[in-house]
């Protein structure tokens, strides 16, 4: 029972953080492409801003992994 709940917690953690990342990147990506259409030089900055939210899913990954360690 406890194992099952932990495994579900792992899934929720990873899914939640992945959705959050996707959501954030959607907005940033659209804005970055718009800015790049104006000025191609912004590609470098754009890609940096674009991948900023990936940190969220990394937190999720790290936490999910630590939780996974508790599953028998």
């Amino acid at each position: 029972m406890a194992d099952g709940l932990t495994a579900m917690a792992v899934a929720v953690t990873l899914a939640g953080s992945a959705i959050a990342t996707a959501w954030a990147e959607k907005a940033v990506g659209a804005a970055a492409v718009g800015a790049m259409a104006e000025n191609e030089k912004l590609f470098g900055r754009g890609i940096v801003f674009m991948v900023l939210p990936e940190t969220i899913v990394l937190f999720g990954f790290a936490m999910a992994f630590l939780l996974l360690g508790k599953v028998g």
Partner: protein
Amino acid sequence: MLRPEPMTRVLVAGPKDQLEPMIESLYALKLVHLVDHHGEDDVITIGKPLAKAAEVSEQLVRLRSIANILNVAEAKEQEPAEPTADLRQQIVTLEVNLREEDEARKRMESLISDLDRRIESLRPFAILRVPLETYRGYTSLEVLVGRVTEDVIGLEAVAPENEVVAGEGVVAVFVPTASADKVREFLTKFGFAPVDVPQGEGSPANLLAAAESDRQKWSDRLVEIEDRIGTLRAKYAQFVVKAEDVLEVEIEKAEAPLRFAASEHSFVVDGWMPSSRVDDAMRALAGLPGVLVESMPDDESHEEADAPPVLLKHKGAVKRFEFLTKLYSTPSHDEVDPTAFLFLLFPLFFGLMIGDAGYGIVMIILGFVLSSKLKDSPDFADLMRVILYGGVFAYIFGMVLYGEIFGIPFHPPVENPHELSWSALLGYYIPYEPPIHKLEAFGVIDLLLLSVVASVIHLSIGYVVGFVNEIHHNKKHAASRVGWLFVLVGLFAFFAVLGRSHDLAAPVPRVVNFLFFDRPPLVWIPAAGLSLGSMSVPYFSIALIVIGIAILLPTEGGLAPVETISLLANMMSYTRLAGVAVAKGAVALAFNTMLLPLIINEDLFVTTGAVQFNANVAFIILGFVLIFLAHAMVLILGAISASIQAIRLNYVEFFLKFYKGGGTLFSPFGARKRKMEA
């Protein structure tokens, strides 16, 4: 290597009669980055273009119109063209020939389009077979001609008196003027779209035939003219390209005085050149009578707006990474150029994330082939070369650290001894136990801790470089870097104590323990700490973080303690190294597991480890094709995500600690980009 080339400011002054020879010398030198004079002064104004500028630009305009008519737009490699004396004469001759042809072509094109319109308007009338004059010249009759989508029936109900001529999809209705409006409304039911009656008399079919034969005649003529223009293009395209090149150079020279300062009888050129080449320039300009050259090395005393241009001086492999720096921003002249760090760290991170000897080899080969084939697009060639270096690290880590080739590990994970492995596939036990297995929980923890070590090394370099950058500018900012470094080491000490082996006699067999945590100096950190719930934070960490914050408070302001959380987030961000490595390994494994049953008997393999090929050869072939495609996809996606993540760690976590950028690239007078790719 860490600093841009030192620059020297040069002033060249001389009498106006030496202006042209001086421009020639400067242009040939290709060493001076001109600083434009803005002419705020009444006595010393902006120079005027050389006398020939107007003529040269007129010729250039003509030449460009010729190039446009000839449609000269491509031709690659061209050696620098030699100015030809009779360039002007040749342009005029070519223009006369070509203009005539061009005008004839335009005339033909307009005639043909007129005829097209006439043919289009005659076509419905040709169907009705009534002479054209029949449609005109009535006083009490209205003629409605148009296309219809269906046959007109029941017209009598609206207009009892009528005459209808109908053909396929066309109808002409002759009705008294009085009932015309009603009929028009009635006809709309049949999709009536009126057409105008074309000019001319007689049988519309004959008129149509005549127009079509005219059109044929003129389009034959047009083909002839285009052939002639094509011949001219084949003959003169090269000339046009070269001449344009020559004229552009001439214009640049002739208009150069617009960037100089000039008084009535003299001129002054202001610019920057690499300090190492000043002597060459002095020698080259010394021959001109009356011209004075003054130079002073940059002493950092200039205003920010007056900063020297930046010439990055990298050679060989490091030069390939310059584009990554420039993609972010050109370094400013007085800061450390981070390209060398990118050269060391980007392939390392990339390799850690790919971590597969098979993919590594493919990247090395692809990177090498593509970077040597694609000379035309230097940026792409550089990118491929960068992938090649990354591939080298991917190969090394794949062999030594992870023991993995094309997603298949040397040995199965401990938790799943029957999973696919090279030892099982080859039927031979590979006598090497790689220290980290990506698919074992133990190995992933090891990777996560290694990521933390990577973060500390990377960020420390960032803070040290930041300190070096700031020490001459702003002591306060430099001190804040020291404060951050304390906080960073304090945070790291927490992880080091957390991850270290409790009993050194029986150490945890992790790479990170063996290389870092169980070794001096990290093993010396006293473990005694403050208990926070189930965690224990070493006093050592607390002390360092407190010292760091004490330094940060006066240098960075009151928000500094909160900002330390963001530093922790920075450190966690490096876990992407582990994340991408594991995810990529898992995707490759998933494809292998899904597709392998096509090639071998899976049940037998899982239970006994014996390899028995599928009896159906077609399945084996299909299996190999699908596995190839799947791995190609994993390789490409992996390369993209690993390079984006690796560059992100450098741009976001690393560069923000020290790098400002915003410099101006050194672009000397005379160094021309080939604009006209003819």
